[in-house]
């Protein structure tokens, strides 16, 4: 590994420059632009001299409906994250510690593959399954004939199911990586000291896999809070989220400044939550 000195600096700049210039132009500058936009009085679509105001942020604070939307969205994010954790962690545990050899690689691939395929298509596939007359409906009727028609589609649970399906592999992936890194000899040492399965899991395995749990949670919570496509397809008009409201500001209402303000409020809320949990997380992960 060459230590950077004057000769290398040119090479480093040439190698990293293009990629980061691109990122600046397409991510960081646009985010700044959006921040600026959130302070504009009227939408920039109408040509006029810019007037700065805080009224869009004020609107958020004034109108209870948006705060409600924010809470619902945060709640949705939390529920989805929790479900992913409860369903995904045991699956990751199975992959990391129970399955061995070629099976492990094959099953890992099978778990991760859907995640990287088209989210829209996967959401649509759940709509297929959950709609009245769909497979789930028909399966239930096979088992319990005479049951009422399944009306899960266009409801909150459907949105949760769709989001969990979308992001579950993320949690499995991060937990798997963390669990796999736990040396088998540590587990053997714990057993030799008398730990039974319950204590072994609670006091050794889970704490050591915490980084994976937290990484997965962060990677799921944030996009889930900001989701709009899944709520729209699976929740219909009823599944209202902040993400959908923001999307409307940009497509239907054309009130960009307000949409921008809502976006940053959402980012701020998520950031606050992460910052609040950070010290706790840091302490728990000491030494790992």
């Amino acid at each position: 590994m060459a230590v950077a000195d004057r000769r290398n600096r040119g090479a480093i700049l040439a190698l990293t420059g293009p990629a980061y210039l691109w990122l600046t132009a397409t991510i960081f500058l646009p985010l700044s632009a959006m921040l600026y936009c959130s302070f504009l009085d009227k939408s920039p679509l109408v040509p006029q001299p810019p007037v700065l105001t805080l009224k869009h942020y004020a609107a958020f604070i004034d109108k209870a409906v948006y705060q409600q939307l924010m809470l619902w969205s945060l709640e949705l994010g939390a529920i989805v994250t929790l479900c992913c954790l409860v369903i995904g962690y045991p699956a990751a545990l199975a992959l990391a510690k129970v399955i061995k050899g070629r099976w492990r690689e094959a099953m890992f691939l099978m778990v991760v593959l859907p995640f990287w395929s088209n989210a829209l298509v996967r959401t649509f596939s759940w709509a297929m399954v959950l709609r009245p007359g769909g497979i789930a409906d028909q399966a239930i009727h096979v088992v319990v004939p005479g049951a009422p028609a399944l009306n899960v589609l266009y409801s909150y649970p459907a949105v949760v199911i769709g989001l969990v399906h979308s992001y579950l592999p993320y949690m499995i992936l991060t937990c798997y990586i963390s669990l796999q890194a736990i040396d088998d000899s540590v587990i053997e040492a714990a057993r030799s000291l008398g730990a039974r399965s319950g204590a072994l899991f609670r006091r050794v395995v889970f704490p050591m896999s915490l980084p994976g749990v937290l990484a997965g949670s962060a990677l799921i919570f944030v996009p889930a809070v900001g989701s709009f496509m899944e709520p729209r397809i699976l929740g219909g008009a009823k599944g209202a989220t902040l993400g959908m409201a923001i999307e409307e500001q940009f497509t239907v209402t054309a009130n960009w400044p307000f949409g921008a303000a809502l976006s940053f409020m959402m980012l701020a809320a998520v950031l606050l939550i992460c910052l609040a949990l950070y010290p706790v997380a840091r302490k728990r992960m000491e030494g790992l």
Partner: protein
Amino acid sequence: MKIGPALLTVHLWLVLVFLYVPILVMAVLGFNASPLYALPFQFDLVWYKALAGNAKLIDAGINSIGIAIVNTAIATALGTMAALAFARYKFRGQTILQLLLFPPVAIPWLVIGTSMLVFFFWIDIKRGLFAILLGHVALSLPYVIVVVGARLATFPRAVEEAAATLGATPWQTFRRVTAPLLAPGVIGGALFAFAVSFDQFVISYFLAPPGITTLPVEIYGAIRKGFTPEINAISTIIIVVSMGALLLTARFYRFGGER
């Protein structure tokens, strides 16, 4: 812990069922004759034939593939260069640069897409395929850098020095030693970039003007209008393409070249 492992394994299989059954159901229904998804199942390719006549979908498909290919070329080139810099040199600011790769992945695409919309409007880049391409490359870059970076981490550095002592000029060393050893990682990153671009919905949704779309955006519009098996057909095709690309990535990343 005798029951434990068995239960965990069962759970894992159930998770796999959960992940794949909806997709399979959707795919199967695309081959069903009934336009209302009514059973009993009757195999028919009518919906796939209808696709061939659906000019809008075909245009969108061509756009998607075209953007994905260009995106792959650009993102792979830029990302590989950056990954090389991270692996070969140790410099101040390296950590910051690596941290900066997180926002495109961590910030909701809704926010990224809308802010691109705002920014491009102000610098007078019209909505369209070029704007969509700009966005796709930005999203692909972190993945390429991570995949190639992981490959570089296992790269035996001394072989390049060995080649030099054996008389190979820097170009010969690159051509005969570095490039072949890097290739699996770069190809893996490229396939990843292709999949990210081909599947990307949110950014394309905001940056697509009326009349010009990519496949996912087109499908979204169709879904909003109502479910038809034609959507199943095109969705199945998309899933097969992107899963295929990713299976290839896995093959190159884990099993290809030298492990």
